[in-house]
């Protein structure tokens, strides 16, 4: 009798009014149909035939439901659920809709990824290369671990410089695929290709972003700790090397070498001129002993403040007072120099 209950579900579920009314109507209709089935069985029909006949005599569920709804009203929620189910049934069958949506979504993902990579290539990579060329980041101890960074950026550069050939190859491959391939799974194959492309671009995007971010994460703390004299001396050495080479090339009238060394010298000079700390550093380098003394006093002041911190944790007042006294002695000359 599952078929009977299913029929009653269809008829009664959206009838308005209280739940008890729906139960009464359902019970009444069920008794009618059971009487009808019993009569058809008595006439010699099988159980299944008798039920089918009784339901046919009673009328289609949609018709009976609409007549009962006209008398008792209808439940809005059930109506909404029915409409949603009908929509689901329709859209689930609409294969073209889902396929089109999947193609569109993947195409948008690929477009956004390409846009991001292009943005990195045009705006970030040149600045990154300039920072690395000027030696602003201190990667002395991490260069081996970061050897993949320039390789990744080189791959990006290669792809960018051959992008027109890649586009041509892709268009040809796609054209051949659309022209030659005949298969029921063609749309799935196309989706797989688009998905693979999107995945590849995503890997490239992540690697590029990672290659631009990691050196900064590694290099910036060291950059702050590095003594400016060393940076200034490095830059000055680069200028000297480039200018010497330029002069030699000029003497030899080797224009190709002249252009290359002139460019190197200009870049090195530009780098030193743009360094805000270059002039004060060069000035202080005339009195290097004083600078070294101030540095040792700074380190001592730092050490005594650490000691004061440890004393505070141990709640040792005498130790704390001693540490603070030593700190004042060490930090006094630094403060005086800063005020001067």
């Amino acid at each position, binding site marked *: 009798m599952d078929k009977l209950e299913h029929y009653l579900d269809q008829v009664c579920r959206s009838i308005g009014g209280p739940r008890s009314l729906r139960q009464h109507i359902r019970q009444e209709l069920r008794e009618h149909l059971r009487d009808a089935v019993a009569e058809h069985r008595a006439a010699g029909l099988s159980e299944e035939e008798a039920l089918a006949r009784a339901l046919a005599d009673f009328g289609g569920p949609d*018709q009976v439901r609409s007549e009962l709804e006209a008398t008792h009203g209808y439940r809005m929620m059930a109506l909404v659920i029915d409409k949603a189910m009908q929509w689901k049934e329709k859209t689930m069958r609409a294969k073209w809709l889902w396929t089109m949506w999947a193609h569109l979504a993947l195409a948008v993902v690929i477009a956004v990824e390409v846009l991001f990579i292009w943005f990195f290539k045009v705006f970030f990579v040149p600045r990154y290369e300039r920072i690395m060329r000027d030696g602003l980041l201190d990667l002395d101890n991490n260069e081996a671990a970061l050897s993949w960074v320039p390789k990744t950026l080189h791959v990006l550069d290669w792809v960018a410089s051959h992008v027109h050939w890649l586009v041509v190859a892709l268009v040809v491959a796609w054209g051949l695929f659309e022209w030659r391939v005949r298969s029921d799974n063609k749309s799935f194959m196309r989706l797989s290709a688009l998905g693979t492309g999107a995945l590849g671009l995503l890997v490239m995007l992540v690697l590029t972003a990672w290659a631009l971010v990691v050196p900064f994460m590694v290099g910036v703390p060291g950059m702050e700790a590095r003594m400016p004299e060393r940076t200034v001396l490095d830059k000055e050495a680069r200028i000297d090397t480039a200018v010497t080479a330029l002069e030699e090339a000029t003497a030899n009238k080797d224009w190709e070498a002249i252009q290359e060394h002139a460019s190197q010298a200009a870049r090195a000079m530009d780098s030193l001129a743009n360094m805000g700390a270059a002039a004060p550093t060069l000035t202080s380098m005339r009195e290097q002993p004083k600078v070294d003394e101030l540095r040792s006093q700074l380190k001592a002041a730092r050490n005594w403040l650490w000691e004061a911190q440890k004393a505070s944790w141990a709640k040792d007042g005498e130790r704390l007072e001693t540490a603070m006294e030593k700190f004042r002695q060490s930090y006094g000359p630094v403060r005086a120099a800063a005020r001067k």
Partner: protein
Amino acid sequence: MDTELLKGTLALLILSLLSRKSMYGYEIAATVHRDTDGAFTWREGSLYPSLHKMEADGLIVGAWEEKETGRKRRYYRMTKKGRAALEEKVQSWAELCHAVNRILEQSDGQA
């Protein structure tokens, strides 16, 4: 028989049957089928909206009764208001039949 004609007369038929005795839905349908020799071919499901509408209008009242077999049935009986409505409908039906018959008699032989 034309089901559209039946729709208009369903309330009259139900009230007429219930004037004999209390009946439940299937019994009403079976009685109509038996007494008319199956002349009315209708969807039995249409009976219940009509019964419920007439109950809401106060022409009939329904009550559940449990039989010895354990099955429950909803019996309908006619109210005073229903009886008055039946008399009115019978009168209207007689007038309608009379009017229709007169037209048919006058048109007889001309077809």
